[in-house]
């Protein structure tokens, strides 16, 4: 009904060229070059660096850490989302600000926080020494730091859905005699399913890509505490560019495509 999209005009063409040119300049072009560099010597050259033991170990470590972070943030994120979305808490403002913190704070500062808790001069050093537990420079520390940086996503995606659907269906289920466990899995989970999946996807991407926090907490030990992102950094420092490109392509495109696919399905379900 309106003139939208009908007449482009000189002004429209100029604006489109500037905007797409800018995106090409800072994003599209660099992405293409990255893909080209990863595959310019063929599939074999691309795969070879991914098969060396250090790279395999790094990728394995990234998978373990990512699965743990997603697991923890889903398991505890759901109750928290329920508390915010279904009950009136006076603490809502405080909880919201706390949830914003991991996104606002530098990953290096996040790593430092965990170092100050569990590290050599950390607050809990005494207790940890007594129990003979090592957290920093080990897998547990890396998981803790990753949980911190990827914490808000599940909660943030699930809360709006919970608020929107309300209690009605659960109330009916209870009236009809369903127990709370059954109600949860048969009524609540299907309602929040896509919000939950999207939140878990964002958590996965964030956890897979985390660099700064993990670098501080892990001590960056080659073949031991190096994750995929730390491995890329190491490869660059060693001028082993093919390794860096192969590994970057692998984790970059895996996380991009899962987000893209889930986002597409999610927006279609919503509308």
């Amino acid at each position: 009904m309106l003139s939208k999209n009908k007449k482009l005009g000189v002004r429209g063409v100029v604006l489109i060229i500037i905007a797409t040119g800018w995106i090409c300049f800072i994003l599209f072009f660099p992405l293409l070059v990255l893909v080209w560099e990863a595959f310019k010597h063929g599939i074999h050259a691309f795969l070879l660096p991914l098969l060396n033991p250090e790279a395999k170990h790094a990728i394995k470590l990234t998978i373990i850490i990512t699965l743990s972070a997603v697991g923890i943030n889903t398991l505890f994120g759901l109750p928290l989302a329920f508390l915010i979305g279904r009950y009136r808490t006076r603490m809502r403002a405080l909880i919201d600000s706390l949830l914003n913190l991991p996104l606002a704070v530098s990953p290096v500062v996040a790593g430092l926080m965990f170092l100050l808790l569990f590290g050599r001069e950390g607050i809990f050093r005494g207790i940890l020494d007594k129990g003979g537990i090592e957290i920093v420079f080990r897998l547990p520390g890396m998981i803790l730091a990753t949980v911190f940086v990827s914490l808000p996503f599940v909660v943030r995606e699930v809360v709006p859905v919970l608020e929107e659907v309300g209690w009605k269906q659960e109330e009916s289920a209870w009236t009809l005699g369903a127990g709370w466990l059954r109600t949860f899995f048969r009524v609540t989970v299907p309602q929040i399913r896509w919000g939950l999946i999207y939140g878990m996807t964002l958590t996965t991407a964030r956890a897979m890509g985390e660099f700064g926090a993990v670098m501080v907490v892990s001590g960056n030990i080659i073949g031991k505490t190096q994750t995929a992102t730390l491995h890329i950094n190491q490869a660059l420092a060693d001028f082993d560019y093919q390794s860096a490109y192969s590994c970057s392509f692998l984790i970059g495109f895996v996380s991009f495509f899962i987000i893209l696919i889930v986002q597409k399905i999610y927006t279609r379900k919503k509308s």
Partner: protein
Amino acid sequence: MRITKQKTPFTLLTISWLYLGFFIVLPLLALIVKGVESGPENLLESFHDPHLLFALRLTLIISLIVTGINILTGTLVAWVLVRYDFPGKNIIDALIDVPFAIPTVVTGLMILTVYGPHGVVGDFFGGIGGRGIEVIFGKPGILLALLVVTLPFVVRSVQPVLIVQNPSLEEAAETLGASRLQTFFRVILPPVIPSMLTGGALSFTRSLGEFGSVVVVAGNIPMKTQVASVYIYAQIESGNMTGAIALSLVLLGFAVAILGFFKLFENFVKKTMSRSKYSEGSEVILEKKC
């Protein structure tokens, strides 16, 4: 009768606060407690380190520049994506999310590859006058990396506002004899400004803390390319925890202040918008006339 009015179950409350307490409150307290423990005079002493001051100043200046560029280009991109149809539009729209989806180290590597000394464009610039423009391991590299990493913020906060904005308001303004500039500044821009600022604030906080892409692109050269987060990392590596804590507290303070300010700002905008006389009422009238 309504279950909503029931008291919050104790287990839910306990699990939620244990979760938040262990993963967010405790680490935050650790930073503050350790800061107090090392003594205010030692913390202040750290601010005499010229490297720290340089890193903080560089970070603030570059973050401000990034925020400015982002507000301009981000609004333009959002406008083009909402108002025009052109081939490749869907690709551009999907690309906007890429910087959030891929690891920052990969973003850094992308910039390094294209604009670095052996990169496609780096070669070109390097050829100019035989001297070369130093993108990588220099400040322009940091700027580029931060621009890519923070690209989605402004676009994604302005886009939804533009989608609901009614183009007939602009037509009405033009029919009533407003010039293009007047239409732009009096009709199009005002409702978009709050979301531009919100997006800008998010880019600013993100730029203050960014580490991965910057360290890949610009390395760790004190007094030259060492930004705040890289300085903190270098202090942790060399065992100067007091210096690391001092600058971390400053960064944390900035983040909290900006987030707090925007919480207030958002509430203020919500209130004034709901009271303003021309936002919704006029649209309804126009709709009827059309």
